[in-house]
Each structure stands twice: as C-alpha cells, then as structure tokens.
C-alpha cells in the first residue's frame, strides 16, 4: 500500500495497528516502548497497543471500537477534499467490522459527496472466533458497497495490493469512494487470550502459511528474477532480527511515564480547570 501512495495520503485502521505505524515511518523502538507502556512510546505510553498514531505521517490510529475508524476515515477524506489536497484516505477494517451499520452510513455520505475515501476490508475470514459465513449473509465484502464500486484483491500478493491501491487512489481522488477487499489471513489468535485453534483447524493455518504467505512469495519472486541469493536473504533476515532484538532491549530501558503525565493532554486547552486522582484531596492537577 505504501508503495502506491504518499505520506500526504491518510491511513486509519482499527486496533491491529502496529505494522501500519511502522509502515508509515514509525520506528521499532517507539513501537515496542508503547507496547511496554514507556514514555518513549509513540503515544508516550498513554495510548497503548490499540492506540498507535503518527500524525506527521498522516496515520490517524489505532482505534479500539470495531467499525468506528471507517466513518472517521471518511471524515479524513472530507477534510482532504475540503482543503483541496488531491489526496485520499485508506480506511482499513476487518471482515468482522464489515457488518457495522456505521460503515454504510458513512459510505452513503461519501458517495453522495464524492469523498476520496477508500474502504479497505482486510478479510482474514474470522472476526475473533466467528468465521465470515456465520457473521455475514454476503461475505463478498467488495460488493457490499452496492452502488459504490469494489475490487477484490489477493491480499497476500504484495504486487497485486500495490496495483490495487494505486488504482484506488486515482479513482477516489477523481470519482469518490471505492471499496477494496484484501483476501488475507490471520495466523495467530485474535488476542493474547485467544489460542486461535478452537474455531479452525491447525491444518488450515499451516496450509495458508505454506501456500500463500506473502513474504515467502516475495522470496520466490526474488529468486526467480535473480535479485538476491538465498545467502543474501538469510543475512538480511539475521540483520533484521538483530535490529528487532536491539529495539526491544532499548525499549526495555526506557522509563515509565512520569506521574504528572496522568493529567497531561486531557484537553488541548484546559482553561485552568482542575482534574483529580482517585483521592481528590491527595492527587489533583490544574489542566493548562
């Protein structure tokens, strides 16, 4: 996606936002620090796993309420058009969120007002533990826009994704909203408390990994076109793993946020009102 767009285009997604943040130019250390709740985190430890942002790269988070990010994304598109930026917004959501009513409300308005909004359904076929056919009467998510055109894309093929996003951007800026359905998969469970194996077979998971893994496909392409040798790729992977380990180690050394941070950023403009801790006579602060 990033290869097809610029940092002036906006991206907004739900809670599976760690890699989106990195792709928008976020660094490993601040990502890990945020997960650990350290002050060096991208949200200074106050947002957490589900709330990564990078406003200077037009990445608007990081949202915990399923579906909410889609009307927000259409709002970003509204502002882009209002300000005549000739940019577009990619609002990402999952197959679980695809049934949310607010999507259709926002899509209707986006179509009426020709907003440069691209709704991207990352269809990994499961909403937590519920398979798509049990949640959607029509799991053809690219068609769910009805009067809004939609494209189905092999989400595990990086070049297909790039082409689709390029096409979508051109379309959205010129004509208004479009839906992209990215056919993809989730290897792990929904969250730390979901083993991910009670609602599907391990064979299914390993089958997808073997046949459709996007990184493995890129590896095959690289070999096929003699762009690098196996040894070179292995070295690259070793380097990357080292970088990641180093970033984790560095993040662990960053301190937790200072106690005063409890009261910062409640408002942009606090008018000097007071805010309180659990025992208001013990802990209070003036909001600037």
């Amino acid at each position, binding site marked *: 996606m990033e290869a097809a767009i610029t940092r002036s285009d906006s991206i907004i997604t739900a809670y599976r936002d760690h890699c989106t943040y990195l792709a928008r130019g976020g660094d490993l250390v601040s990502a890990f620090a945020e997960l650990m709740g350290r002050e060096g985190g991208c949200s200074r430890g106050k947002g957490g796993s589900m709330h990564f942002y990078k406003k200077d790269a037009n990445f608007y988070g990081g949202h915990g309420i399923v579906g909410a990010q889609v009307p927000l994304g259409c709002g970003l598109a509204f502002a882009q058009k209002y300000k005549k930026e000739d940019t577009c917004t990619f609002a990402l959501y999952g197959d679980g969120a695809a049934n949310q009513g607010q999507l259709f409300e926002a899509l209707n308005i986006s179509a009426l007002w020709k907003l440069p909004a691209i709704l991207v359904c990352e269809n990994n076929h499961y909403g937590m533990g519920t398979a798509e056919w049990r949640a959607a009467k029509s799991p053809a998510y690219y068609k769910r826009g009805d009067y809004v055109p939609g494209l189905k894309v092999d989400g595990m093929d990086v070049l297909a994704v790039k082409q689709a996003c390029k096409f979508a951007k051109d379309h959205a800026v010129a004509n208004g909203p479009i839906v992209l359905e990215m056919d993809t998969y989730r290897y792990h469970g929904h969250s730390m408390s979901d083993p991910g194996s009670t609602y599907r077979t391990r064979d299914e998971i390993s089958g997808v990994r073997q046949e459709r893994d996007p990184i493995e496909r890129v590896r095959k392409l690289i070999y096929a076109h003699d762009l690098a040798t196996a040894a070179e790729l292995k070295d690259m992977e070793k380097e990357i793993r080292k970088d990641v380990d180093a970033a984790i180690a560095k993040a662990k050394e960053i301190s937790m946020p200072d106690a005063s941070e409890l009261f910062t950023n409640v408002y942009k403009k606090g008018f000097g009102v007071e*805010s309180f801790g659990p025992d208001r006579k013990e802990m209070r602060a003036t909001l600037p």
Partner: protein
Amino acid sequence: MLGVARRRLGSGTVLGQLMQTLRPAAAPRTYSAAAKEITVREALNSALDEEMSADPSVFLMGEEVGEYQGAYKISKGLLDKYGPDRVLDTPITEAGFTGIGVGAAYHGLRPIVEFMTFNFSMQAIDHIINSAAKSNYMSAGQISVPIVFRGPNGAAAGVGAQHSQCYAAWYAHVPGLKVLTPYSAEDARGLLKAAIRDPDPVVFLENELLYGESFPVSAEALDSSFCLPIGKAKIERQGKDVTITAFSKMVGYALQAADILAKEGISAEVINLRSIRPLDRAAINASVRKTNRLVTVEEGFPQHGVGAEICMAVVEDSFEYLDAPVERIAGADVPMPYAANLERMAVPQVEDIVRAAKRACYRAVPMAATA
C-alpha cells in the same frame, strides 16, 4: 418446592414478588458443614443455565457467546445444552443486535443481551434507553421490556482508554432501567437470576477481573430457586465508626481497607451496594445514622458519579447525623492511561480508601488547628 411456586407466579405479580423474598423455611435436606467455593464465572454460568432451563422464553445473544463458549467463558456449555435457537452468536453489530433483542422483548421473549464489554454498549445505547427504558412509560404499561443487558464493566488491566470505562453512573441516571452490580459469587447468582426474572430492562454490570475470583457460597445460594432482591444493599462488614459504600470490584478493596482501619482502631462498616438503581437509600442512611461518617468508593469518573448521588441521598435524609464531610474516592478524572504505573494511579487503591476514611474520622479536630 418454593422454587416451583415462584416460577409459576413469576415476578410480575405481587404474590410473585413476595415469594421471591421468602427464604425456603424447613427445607428437607441436610447442608454440608464445609462452605463450598465457586468462582463468579461459575456463578454466572449456573444462573444463566438454571434460568434458561426454567423458562423457554429466555435466550442469550451476543458476540462469541455460543461456539466460542463466551469471550470470558461465562456462557460455556450453553450452546450445547440449549441449541442455536436459544444461544445466538451475533455479528459485531451492537446497535443492530441490541435493537433486535429489545424488539424480541416487546413481543414477549426474555432476551439476555451480552456486550463483550460495556464500552461497546455505547454503540447500542439508544436502544437501551429510548427503546427499552422508556417503553413501559410511553405505552402506559402496554409494552414492558423484560430484557437483561449484561457484560463486563469498568477497568480490566492494560486495555487503554476505550476499553476501561465504568458505565454505572450513566445507566443509573435513567428512569425505567434497573442497574445491578454484583461483587461476590452469591451476588452474581442471586442478582442475575433476579434480573432475568424481572419484567423491566436490567443493566447487569459485571467485572472482568472478578470472573476468576472464588467466594464461599451457601447451599441456599446454590439452589436453583435462589434469588436476591433488587434494590437492596448488603452490609458486608458491620462497623460503627465510618460507613464505606462500594460496588463491584471496589467492595473487595473496601473490605481490605476495613481490615487495615481495624488495626488502627477504626471500625468501618462496608456496604456492598449490589443495586445502583434503585439505590438502597434506606440502608445507606441507616448506616450513616449509626456511624456519622461516609466514604463513597467507585471505579468510574468522579463527576456526576454514583458517589455524588449517594452523598446527596445522605444530605437529604440524614444531614444532622453527619459529623464530617462526605469523602469520595473514584477513578481519576482522566481517560484511562495505558502505562501500568499511570493506570494504577488512575484507579482507586486500598490506601486511597483508608486515607479517606481516616480523614472522615479525624474531622472532629477543632477548626483552629487546621487554619
């Protein structure tokens, strides 16, 4: 036998209400001396099971309640036992499925709508308030809504601002709703069964961190006819120096605070509110009239919160009995931070309750000394 009589009468009739408060008299069985312990999770599961068994119009709907066995395993085993017509997995569409639940209640069914957390109930709050709470009034009694909205409420651990809010004050604000907040396993069983049998919409606020906690339960509480009255608080611990009101997880904290206070010669009376709407004003006032001092404890944001209402209830009925200003312990007045150290500062801790109780007790110091 009494249980059967209760169910036949239902809780809609006066006699039914009376039967609900009667305790089984000479039950023809021996109770084991050792107290059995069950978790809150088991308590809720057994309550759901028993009420679904007793009344075929009771059904459960929500995300992952069926095949997944419940996001927190509260509904474990129910799909297998009652089938997909009565245990329904919904898509992630709170506004839609809550409206559907309320509509089903209009037409005589008794739905239990589960929210994975009450944070998500905000997507459906129009139906809870405008479609459920107000219907009996607007229709002059024609359309009553025997529905239960249940799920975890308040802060869990490290889930951030959008997943940690307490909605007790929000829902308790609305006439037409009943709002219950169980603490122990006995509370969970008795209040959920009462909620399901109640003919009005009940918001049942559980707590994720309490699900795994075990509590001793009496044989009476384990009986399938067991029910707790709605609108009645429980004195968890008798005391004479200061009243501490709390609900849900904070009851445990208040009890710990009472232990610490006892060592310092302060005898705290801990009230487990159990019911936020109706609020047991009588019990709270009776306690304050005895102790003359009050500390309210809640997890939610302080402004316009449950403690504010309790304070007013006492000022209105027992002002002359107060020997000290009412103290309020609540969640910090900020969105819930993610970092563990900030989160700890944003949620009431036992020491906050102890400190406030001590302030309430030493307030008798002459004003000159504090100048």
